[in-house]
């Protein structure tokens, strides 16, 4: 999987630091808790925001040049292009240490590949025997589990993840999104004044 190959280098440096003294499980937990702790501070710094704003301006300028007409800016297609650009810059700012950032960065690749191959395949959900004519009753998941799944769908690249990992990713994602919104409003304020 692409994600596994990309995330291997991430596992490397973290492990090298502490692998000599602690066992694997200890490393896993300690790393994650540290990551969670510094996630908030990392995204809160002014420096990050400024870097992000600068990159955002550059990328938006390039996106704007690529738009076919000026009217397309306010169209949904133009807006989603801007949003995708902003998300990609955000993911790049995360330096690929988190799952959602890697997923965002690779998703564009996947989209291109799919469009090239014209892949059209639906995901068939096989519930029970295909030949049986009776409708198979869908098991309703309990509320908490439903929400966990929903959250997994919201955070990019975290559909099937265990709960603690999902919460970590969500923490980082929320911090990053907040920074994105702050930077964007700052930029918007500058532009509008």
């Amino acid at each position, binding site marked *: *999987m692409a994600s596994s190959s990309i995330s291997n280098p991430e596992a490397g440096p973290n492990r090298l630091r502490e692998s000599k003294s602690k066992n694997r499980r200890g490393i896993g937990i300690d790393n994650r808790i540290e990551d969670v702790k510094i996630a*908030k501070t990392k995204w809160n710094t002014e420096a990050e925001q400024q870097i992000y704003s600068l990159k955002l301006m550059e990328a938006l300028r390039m996106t704007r040049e690529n738009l076919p007409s000026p009217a397309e800016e*306010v169209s949904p297609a133009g807006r989603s292009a801007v949003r995708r650009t*902003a998300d990609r810059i955000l993911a790049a700012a995360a330096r690929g240490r988190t799952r959602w950032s890697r997923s965002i960065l690779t998703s564009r690749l996947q989209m291109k590949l799919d469009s090239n191959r014209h892949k059209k395949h639906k995901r068939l959900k096989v519930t029970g025997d295909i030949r049986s004519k009776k409708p198979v009753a869908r098991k309703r998941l309990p*509320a*908490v589990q439903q929400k966990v799944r929903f959250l997994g769908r919201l955070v990019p690249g975290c559909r099937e993840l265990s709960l603690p*990992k999902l919460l970590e990713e969500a923490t980082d994602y929320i911090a990053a999104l907040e920074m994105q919104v702050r930077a964007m409003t700052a930029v918007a304020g500058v532009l509008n004044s």
Partner: protein
Amino acid sequence: MLHCTDLSVLERQQARIKWQQEPFHQQQRYFDENEFSGFSGPSQAQQFQGLVNRDMGINGLVKADPGLDNGWADFGQFDGEGSGLGPGGFGLGSGFEMNYGSSRTISCPSAVAEVTAAETKQRESALPEKMSSCNTSKDNSKVSEVQKPDYIHVRARRGQATDSHSLAERVCKEREKISERMKYLQDLVPGCNKITGKAGMLDEIINYVQSLQRQVEVFPACTSNFPMGASSEITNPAYLQFNPLQQVVSCSGLEIGISPDMAIRRTISAPIPIPETFLDSSCFDQIQSSSAWDGNLQNLYNMEFLQGRSTSFPAQQFSGIRTKKSC
């Protein structure tokens, strides 16, 4: 590299040792499992970290992809030892996963999937009972899966014992992890201090993430004129710093009740400026500055319409989730 035959031989040896220790029905199961272990041997080595999936009633199991990655690193370490139950055992483990419930959210490579498909037929009958596929010696690598009565699934990693005490301990640690992370999220998401319980917290988190994502979408509509010439201004960092402060001041002054949802949030989290109001203030600043009104008016109407539409969503979502809770 580990070979298929080595694995099976080692496993059989371990099985023989184990038979003396454990009751018969478990041994029988292990013997069955042993048959299939060879298939998923070296080529499909997968490593699972300790997984916890808190289920209230379902038995779906979720596999972490980063677990794979960490596993590869581990596997490199253990390679020379020839402790071969790892890959075979994990193939078994994933087979157990496939049994549980209808939510089969595992992304396994195809070979493992075949093995698990073969195993599922055998495992149906033995499902409710406690299963452990490995012996209890600590130096051999193994995987075990225990179905606890409260449906927290813990998967042991290599080199970990499978007696009930350590498993219970591990479950507690997993719970600890989850609660710790929920606490961090509570700090991050405004308005979660009063809410206790996972369901409510998850609701809030979901809503917050959705609202943040929506804001990112609305942003381009808010800026009517895009940066083409004013690059020097924008790149001035001091200027960038200044504006958010201004907006905080202005938004705290503005009382814009767009939806009852927002109003509730505002009362709960007063000190923290809510991100939605940022956007409102920036757009209303446009009105107040009254420069090039006619050109921007159309955009404003579009944007307001968008806002009205987008902010009605949280109310719907909220009610949607609430109804789900009730049933």
